[in-house]
Each structure stands twice: as C-alpha cells, then as structure tokens.
C-alpha cells in the first residue's frame, strides 16, 4: 500500500512589494507519495522556488492547506515549524550552505544539535554513518574550504539525511557544479531514493530532471504539467560513458 506523504490544496502565496501585489503562487494542488523521486521544473519567475520554500516550511502560505505526514502544517506556529524543519525535512541548497571553519563532521552534526529527542552520545556515530552513505567519510575532519564543490554538496546531503527526515528537498543542487560532478551528485540522490527516501528536486535543467521518476512543471504560479517519467536515466550508467576526468581533490 502506498502511503501519501504530503498534499497541498489551493496553495497560494502573495508578496506585497510596496503598492504592488505579486502573486507568486495562484492555487497549487499536489499529492506526493512516500518513496517518490520528483523533479519540479520551471523557468525563473514560474513560482517553483516559492513552492519549494512552502514545501520546506521555510515560508508560510498566504492561503490554502498543506498537510505533511498527516500534520496540517499551514496552521502551525513558527516555533512548531522549527521542529518540523528539524525532524521531517532534509535540505540541500544550491550553494551548499555549510558553516565555514567547521569540519564536515560538525556540519553534519548540526541538525542533531537542535534536536530535542536525539541523545548527545550517538550524534557522532550518526553523523559518521551519514557521511559513509554519501561516500565521503574520509573527509570528515576537513573544513569546507578544503573540499571541492562536489564534496561539499555530498557533505550537505549527509547533513540533510542525518536526522532521517521524511523527505529530501534539493534546491538546484547541481547549479554550482560541472556536468561530471552534477551526475555524481544525482547518483547519490538516486542511491538514496533506492534506499526508500522521498526526494524532491527543484531544477531548471532538463537534463537533471531526467533522473527523476515524476516531472512537475510550473509556469506563472500554477502547475502546467505533471507526468511520470517511465524511463529515468541512471546516473551510474551515465558516468561510465562520460570521458574520464582528472580525479578532483
């Protein structure tokens, strides 16, 4: 039986800039099941980033409802949303957003520090395990400025999964990376998906969206297409066909 992970109904978001009202979202209805790999696409100004912010509880909708894991998130206070962000959602950002002068391991531990339920003792083990999953455990003691872009993004992904969230939300995770590294990062997402994680990817690159199973396209604050991708590309296969690059370090 497929479990419904989240649903939105008539979700809108309106920004007021001076006297002008900007309708960034004009009513979005969407259902996402657990275990899906979804790409959200659209040009800039289409509302996809606003929608991602609402899904990630980084922002509150102007109207409409958003149910996440059977919780009506749109009714929650800022303090409760903090707990949701910590427990239910793992973020991966375009420019990684790692804390500077802080080791990879400490960056990954960060969500656990703000987690009420987590014990202090297994924090270190959990963070190491997350780094192992993304294959970067040998860089645990490195600082972000000693890591390449691809490695930094892997650390960011490890941070996103360390608290075992219900879904991963990636905002243009390959936007700052070259093609080869982008596909490597997509391979990590596909691997996590195979292990049962729900992944929601926001991108404007059509190539990258091809790795997802379901593609949702936004335009002018509405969903204009929502279709399944019957033959997603396999990142590990693509890597074999790419010309071998110099080992990054």
């Amino acid at each position, binding site marked *: 039986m497929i479990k419904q992970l989240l649903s939105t109904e008539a979700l809108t978001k309106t920004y007021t800039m001076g006297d002008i009202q900007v309708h960034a979202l004009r009513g979005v209805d969407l259902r996402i099941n657990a275990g899906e790999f979804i790409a959200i696409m659209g040009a800039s100004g289409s509302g996809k980033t606003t929608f991602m912010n609402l899904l990630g509880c980084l922002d509150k909708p102007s109207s409409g409802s958003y149910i996440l894991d059977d919780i009506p998130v749109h009714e929650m206070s800022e303090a409760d949303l903090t707990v949701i962000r910590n427990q239910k959602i793992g973020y991966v950002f375009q420019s990684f957003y790692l804390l500077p002068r802080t080791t990879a391991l400490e960056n990954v531990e960060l969500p656990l520090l703000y*987690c009420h339920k987590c014990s202090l003792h297994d924090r270190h083990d959990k963070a190491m395990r997350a780094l192992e999953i993304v294959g970067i455990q040998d860089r645990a003691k490195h600082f972000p400025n000693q890591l390449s872009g691809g490695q930094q993004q892997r650390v960011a992904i490890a941070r996103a999964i360390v608290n075992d969230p219900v879904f991963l939300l990636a905002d243009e995770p390959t936007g700052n990376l070259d093609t080869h590294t982008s596909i490597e990062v997509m391979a990590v997402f596909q691997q996590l998906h195979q292990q049962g994680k729900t992944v929601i990817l926001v991108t404007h690159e059509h190539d990258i969206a091809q790795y997802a199973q379901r593609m949702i396209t936004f335009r002018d604050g509405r969903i204009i297409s929502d279709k399944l991708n019957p033959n997603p590309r396999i990142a590990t296969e693509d890597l074999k066909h790419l010309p071998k690059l110099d080992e990054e370090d």
Partner: protein
Amino acid sequence: MSVFGIIRIALKSLTRNKTRTFLTMLGIIIGVAAVITMLAIGQGAKRIVEDQVNSMGTNVIMVSSNFSQAGTARQAAGGGNLLEVDDVEAIRDQVDNVLYASTVYNTWGQLKYEGNNWRTGIMGVDADYFFIRDMRTSQGELFHNSDVENGAKVCVIGKTVADNLFGDVDPVDKIIRIRNIPFTVKGVLVAKGQNVMGMDQDDTVIAPYTTVFSRLLGQRWRNMMILVSAQSKESIMMVQQDILNLLQARHRGTTSEEFMVRTQTDLADTANSVSNTMTILLASIAGISLLVGGIGIMNIMLVSVTERIKEIGIRMAVGAGKRDVLLQFIIEAMAISIIGGILGILLGFGAAKIVGDTMKWSIDVTPWSVMLSVGFSMVIGVFFGWYPARKAANLNLIDALRYE
C-alpha cells in the same frame, strides 16, 4: 535544545573565530583596564595626601596672629607681635583638653660646621613641640625643658642638615655655628621626607625658643606662632573655640579676625580637595576610555552579527529556533564580556602596580571601580550581542539564507 548544548555551540563558535573573538574582547579589556588603573592612581594619590596629613597629627591646632591694626592702618598678616609667650602658658593652664602647647619662632640663618655651610629655616620651640609633632631622634637626644628655661645654646637638626653639614661624621655633641653663634647639636631627627606641599621636612634646625629669641631674632621681626595639641580628634573643635575666646579676653580690644586658629583638618581639607580634583580628572579620562571601549564593543558586535546572518539562516533551516539562536549569541557575548572583563581586571591591576612601583606610590584598586567597569562592559557587550541577533532571528528565514 538544552541550555547546556547551546553553551557548547556558543563556545565552539567563539574558538572557531579566534581573531574576531579576540578583537571583540580587546575593547572590553582596554576599557576595563583603563578605568581600574586610572581610578587606582587617583585613589592612591588621595591616600598619600591623607596619610601625610594624618602623620602631622590630626589633633594639632596652629595659632597665629592674622593681621594687626595700628590705629586704622592694617599691617601685613603676622606683622604685629600680637601673641606673647604668656599666651602659651595661659592656653596650657586654662583651656580644657589641651595636651601640649609650644611657642614657635621661625627664622632663617646660615649654619657652619668646619668647612661646610648650609642655609636653612631655624625654629625656636618649647620642649612640648616634639610631643605635638611626634618627633624623635635617630641619633643623640632631644633637648629638655631645662634647656629652654636656661636659654641653652643647644639644637637638634634634621637629616638633610646633618647630611649637608656633617657628611659621614657623627653630628652628636659637635658644635655648629648658627649666624656665628655656637650651638651644640644634641641629636638628629628621624627623617620624615617631603610634606604635602613638597617641602623637605628634614631641612630644619630646632632650638629652644628662649635662645632663638634672645640670640637670633632681630628687634623688628619677632613673629610668633603657637602650636597646640588637643586631647583627641573629637575635642579639637571645642579647644579651637576656647583658645580664640581666651586670646580675645587676654588682648583687650582685638577682634576674632586678628587671630588665626587653624587645625590640620583645615589643611587636610585643602589637600583633599586638590586630590579630589585629580581623581575626578582621572575618572573622567577613564570614563571616556570606557565609553570609547564600549563603542568599540558595540561596533564589532554589530558587524560580527551582521556578517553571520547567513549562518543564522542555515542554523534555523536545519532546526534551530529563534530562542536557540538568540541564546547562542547572548552566551557568546557574555563569554566574551566575562573573559575580557577578567583579562581587563588583571591588566588593570598589573598596570596599576607598574605605575605604583615606578612612582613609589601606594596604588589603591577600589572594588567599585572594578564593578563599574566590568558591569558597564558586560551590559554593552550583551546588549549589542543580543540586539542585532534578535534582529537577525526575526528576519524572514529565506531572507537570512539569501543574505550576502
């Protein structure tokens, strides 16, 4: 998130940015140290003045004639020979609570001993004088009442005089010439050093007033002073008034303005007001440096929080609440203020000690200067750590994340 956990986060964050942490602390360190040192110097100076005034005796009363009137023409202060030796007897016998009273004549003269000579002040006194001023000898002995009664040609000399006339020779029982009149040196006084006004108290010769009066004073300048010591500090006001009444009664037709009856406390008040002015001056300089230090703390706190808005955004995105962020910044600010405050206190003590040692002053670090400076720095540090952090924590999360 437990407070303990946030303390860990805050301390870790401080050690991660050592330069920034140190620069922030520097403002507090300098502000606190400056206030402590300045006030310590001021207090030290004040205490030196007080000590010296006290060492002269707090129960001493000086009586002199202020000015006298010949017909309607006022003469220069001390110009008239209003006081008499009989007045001293009268004060000693008739005023209650008087311990000692002594005639004092002051004059100048050239001293000679073999090839050396020296010019200094000469005092003619009663034997009581030594008790009033608490004077002792380091060599030889003082002269006695009998010497005063007989008009003996004896004297005691101060250390400066002994050094200049005798060098390494023992002055006791040697004969010196004061204005060519031979005097036997009976003793050398214990050195007292400079007084409040910077005068050398050891540059003096003391002889019986009878001898000084008959041998050394001229006919015109016989200005005399009376030195009295009261039983206690408390009775001094009464004794002062009684002396004034007695003198007026004894000298018919004089007004109270013609006598000057002063106490050491009057002198001490003058000296204190001087040192208070100095303390206020130093305190205002210290206050300015504390203010400048405070502005420094404020600036670096504002800047450091502003440059960390993105960090705040990241922390909040992974689940830090507003309270967590605020608490972290307040704890960071407090840690900086406390450590900076402690270093400032140590530096202040050190600087005060160095100043004290080089100036040979007793430096007094007052607890309230420590509390004032540390309190002020802490309030500034915590407020300007908290205020921008609150602004950042209240920012829209997305704006904080996108902040460049």
